[in-house]
């Protein structure tokens, strides 16, 4: 990694950093109060659940955090509406600036697969790399599923009565919501705490924390290395100068590390707990399945 020069560029504005901060706060609250219910058979879940305040309190924290997520989601959609309707900015739906999957991304994926097997150079990425787009889209989808099913579970009586009585013997809305909420939560928590962390913060060049999302700034060398196409495009269009900002103060860097590292630790710890519990559960299922099979390992020495 080159760290030449003091030139730093703005990657995320204050609005997006605020959105990310709100999502961090609410997501951690949601996971820490919700995950113990999924892994109810394990000691760490009991400890964590009691740490978060036990039965009514943990649930209330969960609901408050859900409301914070709604605020963040509302801000995001308000931003999208403002960009498209007021500023007439089409770039967020199509083109290199968009967070939606573009034809170029499919080429990038192919290029990356070739690069994995040392068959070519790594493609130059634009503003958003393809896996970041997948993360964004799955966050959007996940938030939607979690919000709808969460509301059904929050108001089970009212939501169940939305189903007509004739269908109710076949469609049990609260139960469906519980299954979807639980496994979507596992998917989201597992994804954020392992894949997202490893993809952004724990990459060899970013370890331990990618400060760009906290300070909003990225230095030139890192920028060129990570998003070459974006850098070149900005340079050609002459927009690079506009994004030039003074480097982050050491205080801001310290604060972002101070915030990022504990959250990183908690997230990785959660993944560890979840993974080990999953292995234990699978082992018990295996024992359950094979308890009627009697196989004497020493019978191989019989002849």
């Amino acid at each position: 990694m080159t760290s030449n020069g003091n030139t730093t560029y703005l990657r995320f504005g204050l609005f997006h950093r605020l959105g990310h901060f709100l999502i961090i706060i609410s997501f951690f609250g949601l996971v820490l109060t919700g995950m113990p219910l999924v892994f109810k058979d394990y000691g760490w879940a009991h400890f964590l659940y009691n740490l978060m305040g036990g039965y009514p309190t943990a649930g209330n924290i969960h609901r408050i955090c859900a409301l914070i997520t709604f605020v963040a989601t509302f801000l995001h959609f308000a931003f999208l509406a403002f960009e498209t309707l007021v500023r007439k900015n089409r770039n967020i739906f199509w083109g290199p600036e968009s967070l939606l999957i573009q034809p170029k991304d499919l080429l990038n994926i192919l290029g990356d697969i070739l690069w994995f097997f040392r068959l070519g150079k790594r493609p130059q990425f634009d503003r958003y790399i393809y896996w970041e787009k997948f993360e964004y889209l799955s966050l959007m989808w996940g938030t939607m599923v979690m919000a709808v099913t969460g509301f059904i579970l929050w108001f089970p009586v009212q939501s169940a009565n939305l189903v007509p009585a004739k269908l109710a013997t076949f469609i049990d809305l609260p139960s469906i919501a519980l299954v979807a909420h639980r496994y979507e939560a596992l998917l989201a928590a597992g994804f954020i705490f392992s894949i997202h962390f490893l993809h952004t913060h724990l990459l060899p060049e970013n370890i331990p924390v990618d400060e760009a999302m906290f300070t909003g700034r990225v230095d030139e060398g890192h920028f060129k290395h990570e998003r070459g196409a974006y850098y070149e495009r900005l340079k050609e269009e002459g927009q690079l100068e506009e994004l030039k900002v003074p480097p982050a103060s050491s205080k801001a860097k310290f604060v972002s590390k101070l915030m990022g590292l504990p959250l990183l630790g908690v997230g990785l710890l959660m993944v560890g707990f979840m993974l080990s519990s999953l292995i234990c559960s699978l082992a018990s299922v295996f024992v359950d399945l094979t308890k009627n099979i009697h196989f004497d390992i020493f019978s191989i020495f019989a002849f």
Partner: protein
Amino acid sequence: MVSLLKTTIEVSGASKACRFVFISCLFSCLLFFTSAFSSESLFAQENSECFECHTDPAEVGDKVRVDPVTGEVELVSMLVDEDAFHASAHGGEDFYCIDCHADLEDVDLEETEGGHYPNLQPVDCITFCHDDPAETFLEGSHANLMREKGVELPTCKHCHAGEKSKMFTPKADDLYHRMDTIGKCGGCHTEYYDSYRNNLHGQVTALGHVDTDIATCVDCHGQHTILNSSDPESTLGPENAKETCGNCHPGASGSFLKHIAHPQYKNLGYYKSAVVGLLNFRKDPGQLGSIIKSPQIILTILFVMYVGILVITFAQFGTHMLLSWLGTLLDERKGKESKHDK
């Protein structure tokens, strides 16, 4: 003392007729003193008199006890924890030890070597006090089914056992008791226990919160009148379910009452029966039909789908992660080498 005073008065009277009275009074006085100061005699009428010995580990120990109903032999401590007793359902002001256990009026203490005769009387919960719940239980369909299947009926104390010992009968809302009954119902109904744990009620109780705001087995299925949920008379029958669910979910009605409290999607037996139904489809299409028509099928499909999504997502992104890590590290090493060459 009163009798002594009496005698002196009567002696001063000095009549012949009074002499008999004097002697008899003296005799009764003697009896009074011997009875008052003899350590041999016990009249356990008050609770405090029982507790005098039964809270002292030096006085009482463990006794072998044969259960009068089940014939089970067990070692029972004769020690009574006063606090636990007062916290129990029978710990109020109006209850005395001798309400259930016989008193010591006719016990010959010399014959029993200082103590009293063991097993004064087997405790009988039913005859004088709890005949109504016992009758509803013993004549209910749950008990009848158990008799039909030759399963031994539980005694009162099987379920109503205290935390420290069977002797402290817990109150209905006692947290230990509520937790304990889940395990005791689940001990036989293992399949329903497992599926209960997959429901939100069971998840919360598994984490140790068993207060009355979360449903345990008895909150939905009733305490002594345990009828099959398909029975319209049961607490989960179409009419009664409104009240049963409405205790916690105000306004429960209509579609909400069709809730599946026991989802089967983690039950291996359910998948086996589905496979059997699929194999027997030509002979007996109704078997598979009933599985497809049941509300469990949507939950099961959703569950299997999510397991698939989870496996695919983590397998794919995990591989991507590892490969890109490896690639970055190799590129870095290459970069260093090329710099070195220059």
